[in-house]
Structure formats: C-alpha cells, structure tokens
C-alpha cells in the first residue's frame, strides 16, 4: 500500500514539475524554441507508444508514421475552418463540410480511427514476424501515402493540406505526453503488460499459459497506433500543413532508433532518447548551416546508434525503468511468511 502511494506521489510530483517547466518555458522562450520543444514532446509520445507496442511484445513495427497520417488527416479535416472546406476539400459530404471542431474531440476521433486502422491492418500483418513484419508495416506508410494522394477531394492529395489552424501549443503537447506516459506505464506494469512481455520472451510458453497471442499482439499494436494518431493530430496542428510525404520512412527509422537507444520496452528510456535525439538534431542544425555540411545530424545519429549497439546493445535501461521511479519490490511481498510456513508444512507431509 505504501509503495502504491509513493508511486502516485512521485507521478504527481513529476507532473507538477513538468508543468512548472512548461510554464517557465512559455513565459521566457521565443516561439521558435517553443515549437522545437513541442516537437520534442510529440517525439516523446511517439517513442513511448512505440516502445509499448514494439518493446513489450517483441514486434518490430515501422508503421507508426502511417497511423500518424491517419490521425493527422482526420483531426485536420475535423478542425478545418468550415468556410474554406467547400473549395479546399470539395468531396467532403455536406454534414462533414459544415463541421468545425475544437482540437480535443478532433484528436480523440483521429486517435480512435488510427486505432481501428491498426486493428484492420493488424489482422493480416501481425501474422508475420521479425523483418517480414518490419517490411510489411513499412508498406503501410506507402499504402497510406497512395490513399491520401488519390483521395484528393478529401485531402488535397499531393498538394498537401495547408492552412490547418495552429491549435497545438506546448500545453497541449505536455498534457498528451503525460497521458501517454501514464497509460503506457500502467499497461507495462500491469498483469496485461506481463502477458505481453511473456509473449515476447517465449511465444509457445505464453500460449500454453493461456495468453491469446493474436489478440494480445493486436491490442498492443492498436494502443500504440491510437497514440500515434493523436500525436499525428498534434503534429498537424503545430506545423499547420500536412502532405502525404511529411510523415514517412525517415521518421519511422528515427523512432526505432529512439526505442533502441532507450532500451526495448523501457518507457523512460524511450522518452529520454526522444528528447536527446530531438535536441541533437536541433543543436546541430545551425552547425550544419554554418559549415555547409548538411546531413551531419543523420551521421551523428547513426554513429550514436552504432556505438550503442556495440557497447550497450540493451540500450540505456534494457527493458527496465530507472530505479528511482520504481517501487521497491520487497514492498509487494505481503504473504512471504505465509508462503514459507506452507512450504514447511508440505515438506513434513512429503517426508512422511
């Protein structure tokens, strides 16, 4: 009980600390820096949710940007100013063209549709393993891109949907980062999360312990996709401009790098790696411009990745979380004495 209370206090304390940091940032930093921080926050959401669906279950999906695209376009169409929908998006049905939603419901619907898309795509795709799954989920990105290109009456196709209202600010991003971390943390440290990890460790044994493999895998995949969809919505309303190529393969690989650097299945690791990589990219940009060596960021990221794979292949934290965030395991051992008395009782029986 004390362990649980400590956990909640710690979570509340960290949330408040983060909120204070966001408040300080919005009060003192310029718009450019605030936007960079918001991007880093969106990357945290993406990396953490990918760490849940990939790291816990042992899947290797690269499909996150596809689900971002689903969530991003859905949310953007819902919030788009109704008076401009008529000529920008002529194929929208009457009832949809008249809508102009606030950000929150648009994000939720975008996330939900992304989740449904993951369930639909997951049925066939999740039968694959390892590299085959990676390639198939990579295919999702290209399929989505083709769909968006061809539904140009709904999405403006290759022209891209521009003039999306800039509704995302640092507070929105921060709130969703907290929600993402909370939900993923809850799932990872729950009975359900244990069945996902069991599946990762040994599929056949997990099935024989009663874990429904397909359903569990699909659940993890869909939960990751919901957060990717919401992150896509936030992204669209931050950049105010969404094209079929804005969320692509490069982002998919960046996200995988974050998860690998943080440690497969470590949520805190994924979050820290997302912040670190975003920072590196933004710190190196001025250097790239002044020296004229464009692409330096990618080289540095690749070197960091190779270094980690050689010297610390399990990533920053392995699949665990940093010790300060965890309850002491001893505090969750209520019946140790009861168990040991039972043992001696049984031993006596056995020896007679």
């Amino acid at each position, binding site marked *: 009980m004390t362990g649980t209370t400590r956990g909640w206090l710690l979570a509340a304390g960290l949330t408040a600390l983060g909120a204070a940091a966001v408040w300080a940032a919005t009060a003192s930093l310029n718009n450019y820096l605030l936007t960079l921080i918001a991007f880093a926050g969106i990357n945290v959401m993406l990396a953490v949710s990918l760490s849940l669906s990939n790291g816990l279950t042992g899947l290797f999906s690269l499909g996150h940007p596809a689900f971002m695209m689903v969530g991003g376009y859905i949310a953007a169409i819902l919030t788009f100013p109704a008076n401009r929908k008529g000529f920008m998006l002529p194929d929208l049905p009457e009832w949809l063209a008249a809508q102009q939603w606030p950000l929150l419901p648009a994000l939720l619907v975008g996330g939900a549709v992304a989740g449904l898309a993951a369930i639909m795509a997951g049925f066939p795709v999740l039968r694959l393993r390892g590299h085959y799954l990676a390639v198939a989920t990579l295919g999702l990105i290209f399929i989505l891109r083709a769909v968006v290109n061809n539904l140009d009456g709904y999405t403006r196709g290759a022209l891209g949907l521009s003039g999306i209202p800039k509704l995302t600010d640092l507070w929105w991003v921060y709130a969703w980062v907290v929600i993402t971390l909370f939900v993923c943390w809850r799932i990872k440290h*729950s009975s*359900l999360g244990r069945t996902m990890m069991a599946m990762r*460790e040994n599929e056949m*044994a997990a099935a024989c312990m009663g874990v429904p493999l397909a359903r569990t895998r699909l659940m993890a995949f869909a939960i990751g996709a919901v957060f990717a969809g919401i992150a896509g919505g936030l992204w669209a309303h931050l950049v105010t401009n969404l094209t079929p190529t804005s969320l692509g393969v490069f982002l998919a690989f960046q996200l995988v790098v974050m998860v690998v650097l943080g440690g497969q299945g470590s949520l805190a690791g994924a979050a820290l790696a997302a912040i670190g990589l975003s920072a590196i990219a933004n710190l190196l940009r001025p250097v790239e411009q002044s020296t004229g060596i464009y692409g330096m960021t990618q080289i540095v990221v690749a070197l960091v990745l190779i270094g980690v794979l050689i010297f610390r292949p399990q990533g920053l934290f392995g699949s665990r979380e940093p010790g300060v965030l965890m309850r002491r395991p001893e505090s969750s*051992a209520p019946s140790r004495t009861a168990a*040991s008395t039972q043992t001696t009782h049984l031993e006596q029986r056995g020896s007679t």
Partner: protein
Amino acid sequence: MLLSADGLTKRFGGVVALSGYGISVQSGELIGLIGPNGAGKTTVLNLLTGVIRPTEGRIVVSGQDITGWRADRFTARGIARTFQNIRLFRDLSVLENVTAALHLRHGPGLAPTVLALPSARRAEHGMVARGYELLGLFDLADQAHARAADLPYGEQRKVEIARALATEPKLLLLDEPAAGMNPAETRRLMDVIRQVHETLSLTMIVVEHDMSLIMNLCRRVQVINRGEVLADGAPAEVQADPAVIEAYLGTRRARAHA
C-alpha cells in the same frame, strides 16, 4: 472422464510421428508416458495441449470436443504443461513468470488497468500473493525477484511447474521433468511431483524415458513406440509385457550391457 483422445494421428509431410494414439484419463490419475527416444512422446504432449493440431482424431475434455482449438483455449479448459527444453520467460523475474500465468483466471482487463480502478489493484495484489504461495510450494519464495534465466537448471524446472499450476489446471502434463538432473535432484523433484499430485489432488501425465523413475511414481503407465501405443496398465503388468520388453527394455538393456 477428464480427457479422452481417440485415433490421434499426426503426419509431418510424409513422416508419421504418431498413428492412432488414444488415451483416457480419469480425474485424480497420475499416469506415466514412456517410450524410447523418437517414440512420439513429445508429439502426444503437443497434441494434448493444442500446440499442434492432429491430422486425424479427436480430443475431448470434460465432455467437450476441443480438437483443433488454439493452445490458450486448451489452457483455459484446464490443461497445463511444462516443456522438455525449459521455456521460461527468461528476462522476467521468477514471480513475474508465475503471475503472467495467473492472468488467465485472475487478470484485470484493459479498462480497469489503464484507469487504475480499485478492482485492478485488488486483482494485482491477489495475484502477487497467490504467486508467492505457489513459489512457496517449491521453496522458491526467496528467489521471487531473481531473473528466471539466472536460476540453476533444477530450480528453473520447478518454476516451470509452479507457472503451470498458476493456470489452475485440471490436468497437468510434465514433459521430461527430470531431464538433465542428477539422481539426487531427480529424487527431490519426484517428491515434489508426488506432493503436488496428492495435496492438490491434481491429475497428471508425466512423460519420461527413465523407466525406473516412472515405475516408482505412477500407478498407471502407458508405453509408446514408433508412434503407436504398446501397452497401458499397472507398472508390473507393463514391465512384464513381452512387446514392451522387446521394443524398449530389451534393446536398452542389451545396449547398456554391451
């Protein structure tokens, strides 16, 4: 009748691993299944736990035909197993191995988990307490937080049995539980198996190729060879059966003395 299997045949391409296998298990039995290497013992186990599907034949558990069901549905119907080549969740703790298996009957769903409802917390506390109890049966409570893969071999076998018990089975199948153990470890393990059988009045099938071990432990022994049942009965009967001596004991002894 707890379980009955009829005419189970399994072909892998052209290879017949098992043909026309049958068994009927009454509640409370402790049955030994023996046979020389390659006789089809593991195939029987994989069929009876839904890991593989029979080419022909059917499996009925507590009156319900569950032929062709998935392994996790077999487990839900009360059939649990261990593995010959230990298959623990290696990177999870010993306790987590057991609590992961408790999820089947006691785990909370997605919504209570995410919303941190009191019911989810109660379920979690219950599972941890039950996990310690099960580990206690095997003297493993002190190792609860050790990484499963870090345990010695013999202990890992015990964790596997504890984990199988966590699914609350009506029938437990042990696949060569003493494989790779020295005689002292084997004797201790047999005591544990006997205890589990008696105190939990659990129906069990133990697969082994060590004849003497099975003869001591079980009151009913089934012998298979080359994918077919050779004999089924009390240890003494089976040992006296000429076909068994011919196919199994005879050749082994001859080889051992040679």
